[in-house]
């Protein structure tokens, strides 16, 4: 069965009354869950598994998929409005989304995020449809050395994530590395920095760190800055309208990052969070006006939002075509497949075409629903900002606590949320940037494991990183990305000196 015929089968599933209904339920539940800080697609899908018992697998899985990308779509809302990431994939969105909302352009920021999400989601579904079978070979081409090189490439970006002092950015990054080593070391089974406390054996969930450093720290700052407590209502929302200029500005990043996000989503282990960071950095690097990033740049919202949604569809490539879950969320999805008696893998497309293509077709539909649902909601969502401060602050704290508790149902994690909140607050006071900390935490764990796996495989020889073209080229790109800006700066300085 070729792709076109397959897609027709898929649309038959997706466009049936049942299909439409379940896509709709899925994306609505997903958006709502995504909007609440801390509650992510993992908990949403996990809750729905028992509900789908006995359901026909195709509509059930269409609904689950809808929950997944719906959550990523809706996750930007609280990042933008409250600086409290809805899900880990939208942490990078808060870098520019929150400043823009603070400048009285909340409506615009939400609209940019919605449109970028829609384009990212749609472009990547097209890619998924056309390339899923072919891409499964890309997904498996990355061995441990290539993963190390990829993570290394991401890390070279730390310097570009810093506002002001590079040294402070480096210190923050080192702290991120240190925190990620806490827990049982996967390669030896040794406990590192756990003090024998069983709650630390698995290390920290990313969300605890993200909500602590951003949401809780932000709340502390809000409490301190008692002044400017009331912005007028129209100032808070701002216009929803995007000018032609705005659309033009976001078109480049959205197009590029839809592809970047999709490819990173395809790689097992990379996923929406890493994709959103890399896309953000990518756009900042090539921007003519990188100094605008972090202060409410349109590109700074468009890039991570198109990327994280694209990565979500990308993550379906290894899941559907290889049966390999590339992330925590897709691992739970895999569980949902198995409960419904469907085995994802290389044979899914031929064995159960209605499921394979039904999910893909439903994603077209789902993205359109999401756009239609989200755009008109923006004025109402932005009203969140008019909630009196004391109430708003309590709500953010409450949702952060619920979100963290729902990860593992462990009270210890709640204390850790407060610890990281205090750390984030201290970092803000002493102007240490939080993004390098977060980036080091995300990439550091995988980078270390990939490095040590490579070392075991090669019996300790570093040549494993340069023997094959893939890791070699990734390392060369990272080297160039470090050297070229420094060289340009040096030449610029020299020219300026000559002119003087």
């Amino acid at each position, binding site marked *: 069965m070729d792709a076109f015929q397959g897609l027709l089968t898929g649309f038959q599933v997706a466009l049936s009354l049942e299909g439409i209904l379940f896509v709709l339920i899925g994306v609505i539940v997903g958006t709502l869950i995504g909007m609440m800080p801390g509650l992510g697609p993992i908990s949403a899908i996990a809750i729905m598994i028992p509900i789908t018992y006995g359901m026909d697998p195709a509509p059930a899985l269409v609904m689950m998929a809808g929950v997944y990308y719906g959550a990523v779509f809706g996750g930007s809302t609280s990042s933008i409005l409250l600086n409290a990431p809805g899900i880990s994939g939208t942490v990078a969105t808060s870098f520019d989304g929150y400043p823009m909302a603070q400048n009285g352009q909340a409506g615009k920021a939400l609209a940019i995020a919605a449109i970028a999400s829609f384009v990212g989601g749609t472009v990547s579904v097209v890619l998924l449809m056309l390339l899923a079978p072919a891409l499964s070979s890309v997904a498996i081409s990355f061995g441990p050395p290539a993963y190390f090189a990829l993570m290394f490439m991401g890390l070279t970006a730390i310097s570009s994530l810093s506002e002001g002092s590079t040294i402070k950015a480096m210190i923050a990054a080192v702290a991120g590395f240190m925190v990620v080593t806490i827990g049982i070391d996967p390669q030896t089974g040794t406990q590192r920095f756990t003090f024998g406390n069983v709650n630390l054996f*698995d290390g920290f969930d990313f969300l605890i760190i993200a909500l602590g450093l951003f949401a809780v720290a932000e709340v502390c700052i809000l409490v301190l800055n008692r002044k400017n407590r009331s912005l007028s209502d129209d100032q808070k929302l701002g216009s929803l309208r995007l000018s032609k200029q705005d659309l033009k500005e976001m078109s480049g990043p959205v197009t590029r990052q839809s592809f970047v996000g999709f490819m990173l989503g395809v790689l097992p282990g990379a996923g929406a969070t890493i994709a959103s960071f890399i896309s953000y950095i990518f756009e900042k690097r090539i921007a003519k006006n990188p100094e605008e990033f972090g202060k409410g740049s349109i590109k700074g919202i468009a890039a991570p939002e198109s990327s994280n949604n694209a990565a979500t569809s990308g993550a379906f490539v290894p899941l559907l075509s290889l049966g390999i879950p590339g992330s925590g969320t897709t*691992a739970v999805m895999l569980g949902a497949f198995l409960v419904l008696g469907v085995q994802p893998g290389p044979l899914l497309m031929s064995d159960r075409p209605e499921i394979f293509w039904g999910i893909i077709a439903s994603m077209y539909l789902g993205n359109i629903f999401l756009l239609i649902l989200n755009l008109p909601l923006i004025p109402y969502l932005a009203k969140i900002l008019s909630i009196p401060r004391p109430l708003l602050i309590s709500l953010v704290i409450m949702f952060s606590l619920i979100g963290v508790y729902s990860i593992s149902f462990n009270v210890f994690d709640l204390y850790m949320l407060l610890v990281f909140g205090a750390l984030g607050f201290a970092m803000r006071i002493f102007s240490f940037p939080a993004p390098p900390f977060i980036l080091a935490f995300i990439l550091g764990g995988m980078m270390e494991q990939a490095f040590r796996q490579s070392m075991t*495989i090669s019996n300790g020889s570093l040549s494993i990183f340069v023997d094959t073209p893939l890791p070699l080229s990734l390392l060369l790109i990272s080297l160039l990305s470090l050297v070229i800006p420094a060289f340009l700066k040096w030449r610029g300085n020299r020219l300026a000196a000559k002119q003087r």
Partner: protein
Amino acid sequence: MKKTVFASMITVSALAFAGCGSDDTASTGGEGGSFEPSQTIEMVAPAGSGGGWDTTAREVARVFGETGIIDENMTVINREGGGGAIGWAYVHGKEGDPHSMFVASPPLMFVPLNGQSEYGHEDFTPIANMIADYGAFAVREDSEFEDLNDLFDQMKDDPQSITVIGTSAPGSMDHMQFVRIAKAAGVDPTQIKYVSDQEGGALTAVLNGSVDVFSTGVGETIEQVRAGNIKVLGVTAEERMEGEVLSDFPTAIEQGIDESFVNWRGFFGPPNMDQAAVDYYEAKFQELSESDEFAEVRKKYGWNEMYMNSEEYSEFLETEKEEIATLLEEIGLGQ
């Protein structure tokens, strides 16, 4: 169906009222006499949703409810963390509670033996074992190795040339099932190179040739074998398994290596669970294991039937633990 929806509603509301904590008042059943559950039974999966423990717990709770073997509601709750240690500590705190139990498998032995949990199987009350699963050793389809002996011969000549990958940490299941079989074949167990990949990249690393052997559960290999990506050199079962692809997998024993490994899965209660309660559950689990409905479930996931009552289970676990402890000590991992 209604009951499972109800159970999931409990999960939802538990989520919503996260901060409120739980107040499980342990009501002790009849002393010595017969026991009947008088409140909702809490089934703990010491892991997140979607994994093996969670699936087993949920399917068991569902079939108990649907068949009416146990009338009282069963709620599955997830206590994730520390490879199970958090969930075990949680159940350990419910000493004597006859309305609480958890699902377990060999990590309940491996994790404490590696010094990562205060509590091991001997700290709990074994109720019944339900199913058996087996390990498989797979290589890429185009690999030069045709059977386990090819692989092990190469490892005897040049142990540095072969890397084994698995999902669990060193000293845990994927690692030790391989060590156990390889040792029986005459490979020096201290020389085996094992890497762990807990991010879902283990299969990938085998498919792209970064590593040589994938040590995993039989179920994880079926789709890839059907698709012609990998071949299974041997499985750790005692006898050939039944099933479409499964029956093609040769056991290690058939290949002249006299060793096996079973990934058992069963249920345990808190410490000092009342004997009457154990008797009650043991009988119910047996009824479940023999039911057609649960046979369907086993078929769906490719599990094998392996019912053991409380007493048989305890004896089995003791023997297993001794063997594993010796092996861990030999490769320098035991505590």
